[in-house]
């Protein structure tokens, strides 16, 4: 069986700063993998290498068996199948929620206006912002914006979804709505790679949790084990800081 995502000896340098120091990681179809770790550990960079928003310095990335890092590959065609959700939502501010979800369907998938609108409304309903179709992003709360962003990605019928700290920019009371949508997606069998600080979500929803630190994967296993009973001292220290921030 081909992996949904496979990273082989992935390295990424920013100038002299080595952010990823040889990552090997595979995500199977239908799996939900949460990547946790301290800030600066390279988790977001790893995620961004999967759809080549960052060009890896060395190593290979495969998505559904296709080598993304092959210079001859049509990266736009591959990205169509990979949904991505950003920390800062990155909705297009000059378009309504509905237009945000329609535009790539029309311009990239060449769907007709009517079809794109039907798909957009379906997905906006699904993430619980169907009533906000005509609102501009600036008129929506952070939680609503992030759900529109999820709908925008889903409307492309992606094979897998990348989440880059999707709740980190949200007010605490809005985090739940977004996590609920992500949980629903996971239950539907979507393949998901999620960079997150939400330990509760990782523990309950993820099939696997990957702990990164200093540009390497330190620990990789079942959530109950990695979060509940970490083997590595670094994982233990990190989790202690996250779960008991005031000590």
């Amino acid at each position, binding site marked *: 069986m081909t992996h949904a995502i496979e990273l082989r000896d992935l390295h990424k340098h920013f100038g002299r700063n080595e952010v990823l120091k040889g990552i090997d990681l595979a995500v199977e179809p239908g799996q939900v993998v949460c990547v946790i770790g301290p800030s600066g550990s390279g988790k977001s960079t790893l995620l961004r290498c999967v*759809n080549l*928003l960052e060009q890896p310095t060395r190593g290979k990335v495969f998505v559904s068996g296709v080598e993304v890092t092959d210079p001859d590959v049509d990266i*736009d*065609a591959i*990205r*169509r199948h*990979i*949904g*991505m959700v*950003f920390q*800062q939502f*990155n*909705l*297009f*501010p*000059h378009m309504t929620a509905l237009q945000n979800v329609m*535009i*790539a369907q029309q*311009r*990239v*998938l060449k769907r007709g206006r009517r079809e794109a609108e039907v798909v957009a409304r379906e997905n906006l309903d699904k993430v619980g912002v169907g009533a906000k179709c005509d609102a501009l992003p*600036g008129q929506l709360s952070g939680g609503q914006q992030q759900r529109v*962003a999820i709908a*925008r*990605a889903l409307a*492309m019928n992606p094979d897998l979804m990348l989440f880059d700290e999707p709740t980190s920019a949200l007010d605490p009371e809005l985090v739940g709505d977004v996590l609920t949508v992500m949980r629903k997606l996971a239950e539907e069998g979507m393949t998901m790679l999620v960079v997150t600080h939400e330990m509760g979500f990782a523990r309950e929803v993820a099939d696997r949790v990957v702990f990164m630190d200093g540009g390497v994967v330190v620990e990789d296993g079942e959530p109950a084990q990695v979060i509940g009973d970490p083997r590595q001292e670094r994982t233990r220290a990190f989790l202690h800081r996250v779960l008991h921030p005031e000590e």
Partner: protein
Amino acid sequence: MADQPKTAEPARARLSPRKKQQISRGIQYVVLIVALVAVVLYADWGSLAQNFAKPEVAGAALPELFTVALRNTIIYAVGGFIFSFVAGLVLALMRLSQVRPYRWIAIVYIEIFRGLPALLIFLLIVFLPLALPGFEVPFGTYGQGILGLGLVGSAYQAEVFRAGLQAVPKGQTEAARSLGMSATRAQVTVVIPQAVRMVIPPTTNQFVALLKDSSLVLFLGVSGEYVELAKFGNDLASEHANATPIMVAGLTYLLVTIPLGYLASRLEGRKGRNR
């Protein structure tokens, strides 16, 4: 002064800041009144009115003031504006291009045409037929005027667009690319529309600048139907040996530029609220 002990002369109360401010304001009023009185007393109002605001001469400007002169000013300005809008956007995209020679060309163009006086460009345009035998700018004087205004305006507009394009967050391009849009598609669909919206206020100001610079068409040696406001006022002023037509032309400029200025600042305010 500074090293004087603070206790020296405690009896002489310092002026309070408020008192100082009152005195300062009083002085300003006195200066203003003296200046006004001087102007009123020494100006020869009769002669001024005769030379700058003579109703009969002003009347002679109508209706051509509007039907010919203002119309032509607007033709030159709008033509030059369209030219500079399109060329400015292209130059801004070149300026930010990954392809180095494009960047160089754009930089050289922008630096030259922003650095030269607009008048000089117009003087050069007059000599264009000599430099390029057989070449003629289309649409006669209209074409020449629009070319001159466009060449200069596009250099400024390019910088306006560059600021706008750079102000669109990188995340916008990333979101567009992650949806499978090509780099070009992302620019056209996501980045440029946002940049254009952001630069509407400075672009309005650019249009006002072009409207005023259209007076330089005077140096193209135009006549008759091509005459714009400044030239029109100047010709009429020579004819009557009286400056009133120039004043009238000036008022006509203000009729357009002041509302546009207000419009620009209102657009600016709205942008601030919406973001």
